[in-house]
C-alpha cells in the first residue's frame, strides 16, 4: 500500500508513506462497513427491489463452510479439550485443588477456546476460499459482468456467504463445545478417579446459559469479521493470479488478527 508519490527519502518520505498507509487503512475500514451495511440492506430489502436473496446458494455455502469443516473442528477441539485438562490438573495440583479442574476446563472451553479455535479454522478454510473466489471473479471481469447485468454482486455473492457463515459458525462452535468438553472428560475422569457420568453432571451444573451465549455471541461476530475481511480482500485484488494469492494470504492474516483482537475487546467489555 505504499504508493508514495513524493520523495522517497528522509523523514518527509516516511511521513508521506505513513500518511498514504493511514488513508488506505481508513478507506478499507470504510469499505468494510459499507459492505456490511449493503449486505444487510439486500437481505432486508431484496424482495422489494426485485432482487431476492436466494436460498440455494446459502445452503450450498453452508454445506461448504459448516459440514466441510466438521472433521477438522472435531479433531482440534478434542485436542484442545485434552490439552486444557492436562494443563489444568498440572497447575491446580500445585496447591492441591485438582478436583476443581472441571470448572476451569468447562469455562475456558465454552467461553473462549471453542469459539476462538473454530473461528480461526473457518477463517483459514472458508475466509480464504471466499477471498480467492471473489478475487478470481474480479480479474475475470465476472463481477463487472454481474453489475452490467443489473445483478448486485453484493446481493448475489456476499449475502449468501454472510448468512451461511452466521448460521454455521455458531453451530460449529456448539459442536466444538461438546467435543472439547467430552475429550477433556476422557482425561479428567480417570485422573480424578471419577466416572464420565459424574463429570458430565458436574459440567452441566457448572456451565450456565450465560456462558454458552457468551461463546456463541462471539462466534457470530467472528462470522461477520471473516466474511467481510474475505470479501474486502477479494474485491481489492489487482494484478492477476499473483494478486489473488497475495490477497488470499492477507485475508487469512487479517481475519485471524481481527478475531483475536475482537475477542479480547469483547471479553473486556462483557466480563468485568
Amino acid at each position: 500500500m505504499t504508493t508514495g508519490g513524493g520523495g522517497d527519502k528522509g523523514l518527509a518520505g516516511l511521513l508521506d508513506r505513513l500518511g498514504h498507509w493511514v488513508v488506505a487503512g481508513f478507506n478499507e475500514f470504510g469499505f468494510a462497513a459499507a459492505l456490511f451495511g449493503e449486505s444487510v440492506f439486500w437481505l432486508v430489502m431484496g424482495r422489494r427491489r426485485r432482487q431476492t436473496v436466494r436460498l440455494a446458494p446459502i445452503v450450498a455455502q453452508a454445506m461448504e463452510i459448516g459440514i466441510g469443516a466438521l472433521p477438522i473442528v472435531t479433531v482440534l477441539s478434542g485436542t484442545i479439550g485434552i490439552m486444557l485438562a492436562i494443563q489444568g490438573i498440572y497447575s491446580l495440583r500445585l496447591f492441591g485443588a485438582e478436583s476443581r479442574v472441571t470448572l476451569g476446563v468447562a469455562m475456558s472451553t465454552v467461553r473462549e477456546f471453542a469459539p476462538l479455535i473454530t473461528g480461526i479454522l473457518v477463517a483459514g478454510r472458508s475466509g480464504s476460499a471466499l477471498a480467492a473466489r471473489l478475487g478470481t471473479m474480479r480479474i475475470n471481469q465476472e463481477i463487472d459482468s454481474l453489475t452490467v447485468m443489473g445483478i448486485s454482486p453484493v446481493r448475489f455473492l456476499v449475502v449468501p456467504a454472510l448468512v451461511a457463515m452466521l448460521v454455521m459458525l455458531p453451530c460449529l462452535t456448539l459442536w466444538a463445545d461438546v467435543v472439547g468438553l467430552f475429550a477433556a472428560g476422557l482425561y479428567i475422569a480417570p485422573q480424578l478417579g471419577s466416572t464420565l457420568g459424574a463429570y458430565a453432571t458436574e459440567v452441566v451444573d457448572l456451565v450456565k446459559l450465560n456462558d454458552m451465549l457468551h461463546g456463541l455471541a462471539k462466534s457470530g461476530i467472528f462470522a461477520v469479521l471473516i466474511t467481510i475481511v474475505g470479501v474486502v480482500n477479494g474485491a481489492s485484488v489487482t494484478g492477476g493470479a499473483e494478486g489473488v494469492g497475495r490477497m488470499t494470504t492477507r485475508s487469512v492474516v487479517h481475519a485471524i488478527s481481527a478475531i483475536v483482537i475482537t475477542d479480547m475487546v469483547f471479553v473486556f467489555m462483557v466480563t468485568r
Partner: protein
Amino acid sequence: MTRGSTGSADKSIEVIDLVTHYGDRQILHNVSLDVRKGEIMVIMGGSGSGKTTLLAHLLGLKAPTSGTVRVLGSELGRLGPMDLQKLRTRTGVAFQSGALFSSMSVGDNIALPLREHTDLDRTTIGIMTRLKLEVVSLAGFEDLMPAELSGGMIKRAALARAIVMDPELLFCDEPSAGLDPVVASSIDDLILRLRDAMGMSIVVVTHDLDSTFKIADRICVLDKGKVLALDSVEAIRASTDTRIQNLLNRRTEEAEPDADAYLRRLLGEGAPRQDGTGRT
C-alpha cells in the same frame, strides 16, 4: 433535473465532453460521440488509446471526472440504483474474456439474467436459453462448464448471455481478439446477423482492422484519449490524417523528434509527459 431522461430519440448513446483520470493521469480528453439506433459503431484504437476506459464509462462501471454519458435516453450519472438496474436489463455486454461464471454451466450462465430479472418458469427459461445457444451455433453445449470450452466458444457463449434478454443495445469488447481468422470472421458474421435480425444498436470495441471494416457502419478512432475521427467506413478509409493512415496501415509512430526529452526520460528526470499532466 429534467435533463435526466431527455436526449434525441434516434440516439442509443450520447457521450458529451467526457474527461476521466486514473489518479493524476488523464485518460480521456473531452471525448464526444454518439451511436444511432440500429447501427454498429466500432470504437477503434491501439493499446493505451483509452478505448477500454471509454467502454467502462459507457457501461457505468466508472464515474467520469466530468462530462455526460447518456444511454438509451438516460443520463448515467443521474440515475438512481433502481433505474440503473432497469436500464441494465435493456443492454447486453460481452466482455473480452467472456467473463462466464466459472462455477456455472454454460446453460446456467445464459439463463442467469432471465432467472434474476423475469418471472418466467423453468421450461420457458430453458427454451429461451437453447434458442440463444442456437443463434450463436452452440446448441447442445449447455451442460458443459466454461472451462471445457475453446476460446471462440467462450466468446460465442458470452454473446448468447449478452443477448438473452433481447437488449436494445449490445456492447462487445474485443469480440475477435485472440481467435484464429476463421473463427474471428464467424463472430463478425454473428454480430452482423444480430443487428439485422434483431435491430440492435451495437458498440464494438476492437483493435482488429479487418473486423472493423467488415462490420462497422461508423468508426470512432481513438488515439491517446482523444477522438481522432468519427465517421463512416469510407470516410475513414479516405482520410488524409497521417495518424489515422498510420493506424490503418499498421505503421508505427514516427521517431521521437525531441532528443533532449528522450535523454531526460532515460535519466529519469521526470520530463513532462506528452499530455502535459505528468506527476509532480
